């Protein structure tokens, strides 16, 4: 965890298989000068390894916020969501589903699996950057997260 001005900054885990989206998210973090560390994994299985600190992820921190894409290889986002919300160690971590899908069923299923927010990735890059900025404002600045209480 990074220390800034007495405030403990939470780490952010991005579960995203598309390098383009990863790059755009990084650009947005850069643009808003978001100080939180951004960790990236490429599929649902790696995400679960990261969260349970197994294998190569043994040294990794527990993230304070998860940005989850739904369309993932191996194990899709909804499966990851279901699994981590069924795990008492992990269920407190807020999950923001960030995906291209605008399908009603995806939205409904995500919320019924206790996603904390569902956000469609805007097509427009400017708007995408705005969205990342708003996530930062809300989850990383405004609200108190459980991981910040340690």
């Amino acid at each position, binding site marked *: 965890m990074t220390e800034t001005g007495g405030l403990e900054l939470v780490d952010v885990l991005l579960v995203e298989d*598309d390098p*383009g*989206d990863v790059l*755009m998210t990084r*650009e947005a973090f850069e643009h808003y000068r978001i100080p939180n560390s951004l960790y990236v994994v490429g599929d649902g299985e790696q995400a679960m390894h990261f969260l349970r600190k197994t294998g190569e992820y043994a040294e990794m921190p527990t993230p304070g916020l998860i940005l989850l894409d739904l*369309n993932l290889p191996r194990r899709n986002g909804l499966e990851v969501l279901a699994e981590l919300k069924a795990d008492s160690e992990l269920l407190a971590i807020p999950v923001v589903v960030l995906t*291209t*899908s*605008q*399908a*009603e069923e995806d939205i409904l299923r995500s919320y019924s699996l206790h996603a904390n927010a569902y956000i469609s*990735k805007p*097509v*427009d*890059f*400017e708007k*995408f950057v705005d969205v990342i900025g708003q996530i930062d404002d809300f989850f990383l600045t405004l609200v108190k997260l459980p991981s910040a209480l340690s």
Partner: protein
Amino acid sequence: MTIDRPSSGGSGRAPTGVSGATGRRIKTSAEDAASRWPLGRIIAAGMLALGVVLVAAIVVAAIALSDLGSDRNRVVNTLDPAAFHGSQLYAAMLNQETGLRGYLLSGQRPFLVPYTSGAAQQRTQVKALQPLLASLPAARADLSVALRRIDIWRSTYALPAIGRVAASGKPMPGGNIATGKLEFNYIRGPIGSFQAYLSAQRKQAVSQLRASADVLDITAIACAVALVLVVVALGIALRAAAIRPLTRLAGDARQVASGDFDHEVDPSGPREVHTLAVDVNQMRRRILRELSAVRAGNTALEARARDLERSNAELEQFAYVASHDLQEPLRKVASFCQLLQRRYIGQLDARADQYIEFAVDGAKRMQALIDDLLAFSRVGRAERAPTLVSCAKALSQARVNLTNEIKKSGAVIETTDLPSVNAEFTLLTSLFQNLISNALKFRGEQPPIVRITAGRREDDWLFSVADNGIGIEPEFADRIFVIFQRLHDRTQYAGTGIGLSMCRKIVEHYGGRIWLDTEYHEGAKFDFTLPVAPSDYEEASHD
């Protein structure tokens, strides 16, 4: 000597024998029908038997009756009158003899009166007897003997004695009278025999009468017994030949009718019942055939329905894939073009900036097309059941969604009372929103005025959305409803061209119709129908 070998050559002959046997056993239904007695013939045979019995009875009874008649006739019209006249004749003879004797003994004329009246009576009786004795020769012979003796008595005794008394005027001595009496006794003999004969004849006739009456009685009883027997026999025959087979047939037919089409109908009984049973069997087989054809057709239809369902599901899957998987790379193209623009604008030349702009614009437009296509494909996926929705509410939601556009254009939206229809709120809202947005987009010089009205037209509500905009040429009345068809340059009027096709899909999804009113020239006027909700029907019928 030959040894009896029943099995020898059996292998060669047996098949022929078997086929011959089965050939005999199995009759074709036509032969079968021909060999059966029709019901009519059974009844006719019964009737014939009954007729024969009746005719025989009538003949016997008629003979007995005629015998009875002739015997009675003989007794009443011949024997009894003959006996009566015979006794009268005897009485007449006694009168003559008494009168004669009185006269001879007294010599006085008045005593002779019974003699003369008796003679007259004798003639009358003989005259009456003559025709009656035509059929009784023995009696006739007796009578002629009697008459001859009467003549002898009269000529040899009576008349000479009367002459003598009349001449002398004195009575006759008793001795002569005794001689006369002796003569008269001769007459008694044949008359007595005559009467005895008649009496015997009568006795015989009466016994014949009795015999005839007995025959009549027996005939009547026999006739009654025969009638009862024939009726009972006919009843039993009808029961066996008609009622039982008919009952069985009715039972079989009922079983078939109740759906057991494999139940074979037993074709036994008289010809009519057999024919009927064969017909019922044929009908049953035909129904069975058609049923299996219908079942096969149904199976094919079900298979087709399943195919359609699958293809629909695939289409939906395609729409989803198009919306999701095609959007990803598109978003990439657009986003990184924008990133390029941001980072490197001014560092490249103006032409490069323009290239990037076009690339971004194209990607965005494609994005909009994909979104619209997805929305279009979602109409009618029935995620929610339609409920009774107020059109007024849907319209006000549409106005809320279009707040900016309405404000910007200074539009006035007028509406009359709108009914409630069975629909999905979001789709109904989308319908009004698309039509109003269309009116605002294609406005003329003046601020737009949109008039929305509704009225009952038989089983439908007829809605109209009229504006004062640039209007649509009648030749495009059909093309405007085709998806992504546009009448104008994209730079002039924005949009993908999905609005009206979306409207048509929504209206048709609820069983209505939408069209452009080509008679309206102050702008564009769209008419559409939506079915009247069943609850409104009830209200209407109660009025």
